[in-house]
């Protein structure tokens, strides 16, 4: 285990947390889009808002964390990705702003047309942002981002079959994750009618994911052969595990075992996310740049690990306190004034 590997793993853990937490928030925004007309969708939208309100800001910290670790530990990769893929990344950044703004504003808006407008902006940016992140991943994975500054095509690097697959899968996974969480939240919140509404649609989303993933195998074989090879050889156990977890969460959803659904859906997403780096390891920027060539000097990697370790020691107990405080709030106790 060398220092560069540790930093790589820590960074990917950050990506995973971002997907599990903020990804679900994006998905909740997509559910908002599917919630139906203003009148009948109102209780669903209010519920979605209540579920993600307290957490969605904090969940974005993980994105900043990933960016900082990437530019510190692997400066050249950061520069290559950012300069070649600056169009989808700019659009993703704008999507994040539009989403936060619309969400805050809708909470404060009183007129129906205002709520519709901001709700629309919130929902639309919730779908577009994960799509662009998925497209970025597809561009990197299919070897369209060469090292160096803006060496790749600024268009085809994210407008290609693998990027389209990555984008669509990212959106669907966010939707499914959010659906799984919301079913559990609605049951705990004593709204079985809402839980049922989410459940049926989450089942449909899961079916679509299955179809897209199967089609995706063909796309990767045709468009990103090295990735396909890695996924079907070295990363095969992880890939199979993601299928197992996905199928398990589907069955659990069918039988309405919501607390287990949440865990199975999370594990499914984690395995999908770790399958990709495992498939192309040790290459960081396909086709040829390895993580070792891209890594910063030892002194930098060591300092980064120290800072992150200290950070974890400080953050974990405080986070635990916050969660326990909120749990106590859930079990009763008077609301804040």
């Amino acid at each position, binding site marked *: 285990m060398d220092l560069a590997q540790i930093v790589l793993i820590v960074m990917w853990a950050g990506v995973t947390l971002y997907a599990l937490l903020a990804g679900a928030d994006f998905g909740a925004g997509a559910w908002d889009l599917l919630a139906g007309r203003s009148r009948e969708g109102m209780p669903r939208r209010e519920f979605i808002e209540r579920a993600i309100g307290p957490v969605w800001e904090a969940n974005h910290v993980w994105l900043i964390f990933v960016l900082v670790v990437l530019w510190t*530990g692997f400066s050249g990769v950061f520069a290559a990705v*950012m300069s070649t893929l600056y169009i989808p990344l*700019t659009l993703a950044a704008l999507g994040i*702003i539009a989403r936060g703004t619309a969400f805050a504003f809708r909470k404060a808006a009183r007129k129906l047309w205002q709520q519709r407008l901001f709700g629309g902006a919130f929902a639309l940016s919730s779908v577009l942002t994960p799509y662009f992140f998925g497209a970025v991943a597809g561009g990197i994975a299919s070897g369209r981002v060469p090292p160096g500054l803006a060496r790749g095509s600024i268009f085809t690097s994210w407008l290609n079959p693998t990027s389209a697959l990555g984008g669509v899968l990212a959106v669907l996974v966010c939707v499914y994750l959010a659906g799984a969480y919301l079913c559990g939240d609605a049951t705990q919140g004593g709204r079985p009618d809402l839980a049922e509404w989410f459940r049926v649609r989450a089942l449909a989303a899961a079916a679509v994911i299955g179809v897209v993933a199967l089609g995706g195998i063909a796309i990767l074989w045709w468009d990103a052969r090295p990735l396909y090879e890695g996924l079907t050889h070295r990363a095969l156990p992880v890939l199979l595990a993601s299928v197992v977890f996905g199928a398990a969460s589907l069955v659990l959803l069918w039988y309405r075992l919501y607390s287990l659904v949440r865990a199975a859906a999370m594990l499914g997403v984690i395995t999908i996310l770790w399958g990709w780096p495992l498939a192309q390891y040790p290459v960081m920027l396909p086709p040829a740049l390895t993580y070792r060539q891209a890594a910063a000097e030892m002194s930098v990697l060591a300092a980064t690990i120290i800072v992150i370790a200290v950070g974890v020691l400080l953050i974990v107990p405080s986070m635990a306190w*916050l969660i326990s405080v909120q749990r106590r709030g859930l079990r009763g106790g008077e609301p804040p004034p």
Partner: protein
Amino acid sequence: MGTWQWAAGLVTGPASPEDLIAARTQMALSLGWHIILACLGVGMPTLMVLIEWRGLRTGDEAYRRLALQWAKAIGVLFAAGAVSGTILSFELGLLWPAMMGMYGQVIGLPFAAEGVAFFIEAIFLGIYLYTWNRVSPKAHLLAGLPVAISGALSAFLVVCANAWMNTPVGFTAAGGRVRQVSPWRAMFNPAVPHETLHMIVAAFMVAGFLVAGVYAMGMLRGNTDRRHRLGFVVPFTLAAAFTPIQIIVGDYSGKSIHELQPAKLAAAEALFRTQAGAPLSIGGFVSGDRLHYSIEVPKALSLLAGGSFDTVVQGLDRVPRADRAPVGIVHFAFDLMVSMAFALLLLSAWFAWSWWRRRDLPRSRWFLRFAALSGVAAVVATEAGWTVTEVGRQPWTVYGHMRTADAVNPAPGLWAGFALVLLVYLVLTVVILYVLRLLRTERPVAPQEPEELPQARAR
């Protein structure tokens, strides 16, 4: 494919000088906007803890109600700050990939540490808002302390990174690559002490004067109840106390820049000729290699920069023409910053005099009018100060090592991104002001807050 390529050519074409201007303007806009929020994020938690502590001491309910209202405002501003901070970390890569590709590993450390501080601030702000009436008042006050401390720490760490761009150390550059990186040395570079101190004090002033200004406006409208008075006096006292300190810190900064970046001081003072007994020039405009119509205080610059009348102050004649900052802008920004600081000093003195004589605010309505504008003045001074720092460093991004023109993303079409970002920031500004106005109705609106019954998602 023909049509496609033709369409692509419309949006793009090769990267141009206009793209560089677009990138610089976009960065300036995002940073300038973020700095205001950052100042509030650093200063307001301290105000909040201060006023809650006063409430504990006096048992006065008005203090506690103010603390809650400020905590909600911090919640809104913090959310907006988190979004604009995300955008900034994107922009560092999207606009300046050449700088990040080469030097990212050298200045990554303070950013990583800042991430930790920011996270802790977010967590404890959540705890603070959530435990409002649920724990003992003492414990609640303690939960507010980490919010205030980590806010100030965030400012310190980010400014460390900026200080490094002014005094880059902790690496050796060879053949387009950096080697022998010592990240801790880079983080604690020579410009850190004066830059961080100057910025943190500025943040307290901006937060204090802005918050006080809101209540001053309320008082001008005739709301002179106890809550408005307290909401004015506590922040204004804090900011007024920091004003003379800031002027001393500013003087120390000037002396440091004289040592570390003489070319920047020369641009700020529009001093074209290297000389002993250099004058302090106030106002005027630059054309050619001369400063016209300025008020000169003889030998004052030498005294301020080096502590004696015969200190030799380096002028722009020692700086090659291609390495000069835009003198007119830097000089104007410097004078603007200093004049705002002294205007705030006068206002603070007025307040101190009246408080010392009568234990009360000045009776004049003019005092309230000026106080209502004091927050704007503090913001203008901060923005002008950053203009001196950043524009005064030009044409370098990493001082003496990498030019801004070489740091920019070579991809074409950056102006389109700038247009989009401009639009977004306009909308964001409107939203924040609207939500903050709603706060006066005392409805819970901070995104971290529960509505009626907290239904937080257990994760």
